[in-house]
């Protein structure tokens, strides 16, 4: 795809560079202006070579939000990274193999979750972690996320699917891999909250949204996933369902990256009908009055330090949780600022990026320590890993809080 015309919108103002968390801590990274409009503008048709610094980009996509004139920065980065991996990366190199494994975490999770306890024991073993670092380049500093004893999908199947039938109110849940294999409680919270509001829920067949694949330039893998998702979600939309996701990177991929990267039939329709789970409720339901009616002191809820993921920021969702829970008496939710958490999906898992990842996260950790609450809150799975890793706090998803407030009380919704 020729993205050179995208450079027409660039005024060289450098807002993107000043918003780039990687450029701030990694002096060898030239920044998004170079990676995007500059590198593209300098291209000729026969120039296939992409500068290897493209692999230093963490795919946080903050440059998209920073740009005052709609330069398609992350699209340029994604495409350039894809070209770099296709044409210049040694497919037998440790880096490629490691990135492929990280990008296809869902495939491994499917295997690991078959024997969750064994997997957790093995992956939690410090020797295994050392081997991972030495052999694969996956940092030993981080604890591997634990697999749930039962995946969300098998719980859903056992439960017999939806408990609520409705012709008008229908959502198809894009849970992604993480809520299915690891944080099943988030997915269950979504089901209970939405059913409380009278929605019929569909859990369509799906694959990873592709976010970690984009971030590692594995565009063929991402395309395969996208094809399945666009087909199945498209069918759901035909049948009157809107798509909701509980992970903001998943909704980001469906909304922005699919139409930007793939010429598949139906990407535009899927993008136009996809929402973040909390966003969708706030658009379509009165959530605030029931929240106000709850006596927060009765609930067993701590104060929270809330971090908005970069990918939620890009969808304009960075204030929604804080603004909603402001109405929940007795529960403080404090925004810990607008910095990036630094883990950025698979970025912070790479041994050579770990220190950068923690340096980027430093500001967030400080703000979390400073906040009243000693429990974290965020929508993004990997942000929550980083928050926990840096502070030791337990981290919740806004949907879990919503479940506690609206489902476990007998408040009218």
């Amino acid at each position, binding site marked *: 795809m*020729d993205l050179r015309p995208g450079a*027409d919108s660039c005024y060289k103002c450098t807002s993107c560079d000043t918003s780039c968390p990687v450029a701030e801590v990694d002096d060898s990274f030239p920044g998004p202006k170079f990676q995007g409009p*500059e590198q593209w*503008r300098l291209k*000729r048709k026969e120039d296939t070579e992409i500068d*290897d610094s493209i692999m230093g980009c963490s795919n946080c996509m903050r440059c998209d939000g920073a740009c005052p004139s709609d330069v398609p920065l992350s699209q340029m980065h994604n495409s350039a990274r894809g070209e770099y991996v296709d044409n210049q990366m040694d497919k037998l190199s440790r880096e490629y193999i490691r990135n492929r494994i990280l990008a296809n975490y869902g495939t491994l999770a499917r295997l690991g979750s078959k024997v969750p306890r064994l997997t957790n024991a093995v992956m939690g073993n410090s020797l295994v972690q050392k081997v991972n670092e030495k052999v694969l380049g996956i940092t030993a500093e981080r604890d591997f996320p634990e697999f749930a004893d039962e995946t969300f999908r098998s719980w859903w199947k056992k439960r017999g699917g939806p408990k609520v039938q409705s012709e008008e109110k229908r959502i198809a849940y894009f849970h992604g891999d993480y809520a299915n294999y690891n944080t099943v409680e988030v997915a269950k919270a979504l089901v209970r909250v939405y059913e409380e509001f009278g929605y019929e829920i569909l859990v369509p067949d799906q694959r990873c949204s592709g976010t970690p694949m984009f971030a590692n330039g594995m565009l063929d893998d991402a395309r395969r996933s996208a094809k399945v998702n666009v087909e199945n979600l498209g069918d759901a939309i035909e049948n009157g369902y809107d798509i909701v996701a509980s992970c903001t990177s998943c909704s980001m991929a469906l909304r922005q990256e699919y139409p930007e990267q793939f010429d598949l039939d139906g990407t535009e329709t899927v993008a136009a009908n996809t929402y973040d789970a909390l966003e969708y409720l706030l658009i379509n339901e009165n959530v605030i009055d029931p929240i106000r009616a709850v006596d927060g002191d009765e609930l067993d809820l701590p104060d929270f330090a809330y971090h908005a993921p970069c990918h939620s920021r890009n969808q304009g969702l960075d204030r929604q949780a804080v603004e909603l829970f402001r109405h929940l008496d007795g529960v403080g939710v404090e925004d810990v600022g607008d910095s990036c958490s630094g883990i950025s999906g698979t970025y912070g898992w790479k041994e050579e990026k770990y220190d950068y990842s923690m340096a980027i996260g430093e500001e967030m950790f400080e703000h979390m320590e400073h906040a009243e609450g000693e429990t974290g809150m965020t929508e993004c799975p990997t942000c929550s890993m980083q928050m926990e890793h840096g502070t030791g706090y337990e981290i919740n998803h806004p949907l879990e809080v919503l479940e506690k407030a609206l489902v476990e009380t007998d408040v009218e919704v």
Partner: protein
Amino acid sequence: MSERTEVLVIGGGSTGCGVARDLAIRGVDVTLVEQGNLTHGTTGRMHGLLHSGGRYAVSDQASARECIEENRVLRDIASHCVEMTGGLFVKRPEDTEEYFQKKLEGCRECGIPAEVLSAEEAREVEPFLAGDIDKAIRVPDGAIDPFRLCVANAADAEQHGARIETHSPVTDVLVEDGEIVGVEVTHESGPGKRVHGTEGGTEAIYADHIVNATGAWAGRIGDMAGVTVEVRPSKGVMTVMNVREVDTVINRCQPKGDADIVVPHETTCILGTTDEEVEDPEDYPEEAWEVDLMIEELSKLVPMLEDARTIRSYWGVRPLYEPPGTGTADPTDITRDFFLLDHAERDDLPGMTSIVGGKFTTYRLMAEKISDHVCDLLGVDAECTTADEPLPGSEDFSVLRDYMDEFGLRSPIGRRSVQRLGSRADEVLKTDEANPVVCQCEAVTRAELRDAIGESGTDLNDVRLRTRASMGNCQGGFCAHRMANELHDFGGYDQPTVDAALDELWQERWKGQRHALWGQQLSQAMLNHLLHATTMNRDGAAPEDFAAFDTGEAPDTAGGLDDAGDATGATAPDGGIPVDADAMDRRDGGDAGGD
């Protein structure tokens, strides 16, 4: 002061530089004078098209044959100035099949490789071509950097003992005893490299023979000598796009017309052009309708041009000539052939030969014929070798290298630098010092700039033409001052000199942008203006006396960007600020001074 030389060449365009190189290689003592920078005239204001000859394959087959021959020569001897993009003659539904076939036959008759592509095949080559085109003919058109080519010719001439003097307009032609014996030139800043603010002076240069290679200005030199050379200058507009929408030269397959070509040039595309006779090659109207016409017409071939960003437009004048009495009314019908006018035969005034007409692609062939003529006159017995000897920069080189390893440069920056420098890349880019990118739009590093400054004195426009620094989408907004800073850091020039050089570059950049002030480039121009005004005070709005400003004593400056507080300070009658301590003491704030 005066100087003797065997041959004096007037004009530092492609013809003049080509002649200087050719004669110097043959062992002739040459001096070349040019009124501005090299390529100041027509050469610097062309499309950048290296003709395959396809354009003339129907109307002027002799020119077409010369073009394809020289096209092959230049690919060989000037490879670092040439990009072999290939070209397409695109037929739209409203263009005649008859002419398409004529074009195809014409190309084949002239030995120009030509193949027909279906609309689909053409769009495979260039995805942004219009959806409703019929078909296309593929020919070996290319893109060429005229400045780089002239610099290489001049450099090679210098290496063979020639003297090259830029910024030295001819102010008189010296005639003695019915013979032209030399010229008087006025050096803007003394002989040698140009330095702003240096005292100039005049110099008489005596020569055995003079070559008037001033193109559209040939009539003026003729006037000074008292002979008539009737050049008919014809202007044409070129509009520069911000990105390469196409990587192939796109021609409209029509007999003739305005706005029928798009040339991918370096990081941009250049749209052209018009053909309109003007009185004066230096003073003619540059009109908005001409730019509008380019975009409107060429959008029919490449629709995205309609809304694409334009960074500037410029105009050039063709030095058209036809023998007296031909009387062609329409300048587009005037031949593109060149004429060698020996004033001894023509006007009974020996000592000078004028060259008029011609075109850039065949510059070397013209230079060869002129040099042969001059050598005959001077009795020099030497063969022309310019078709075989590569220009400096085009000796064997490859752009396929490990830029990070060799030069410490990121690949697109290293690649663009090597494409510009050719075989000089190692000598210029291998440096032990830090080598930051100074111009980000065009990927120009400090080492390349310093190399250019070494050749150009304080002339930042010359540095610009050598390196492309400040020729990208911000048009110098983010790098013009950095370039100027190198004049100080590396060149050791003082502040007034550097300021003058910077102002001149800035004005030149503004000149072309005036014709692109809508949409994105308008925003860019405003951003540039405010950046320079508010961070470097280059609009001179704030007071010079910062001490007074800091204490809040500075007056409100009309039209200034910042509101200087409540202006309690009095101003002197002349609007300036009293700065001596006594004056400060005498002031009783609140009372505006002056009477």
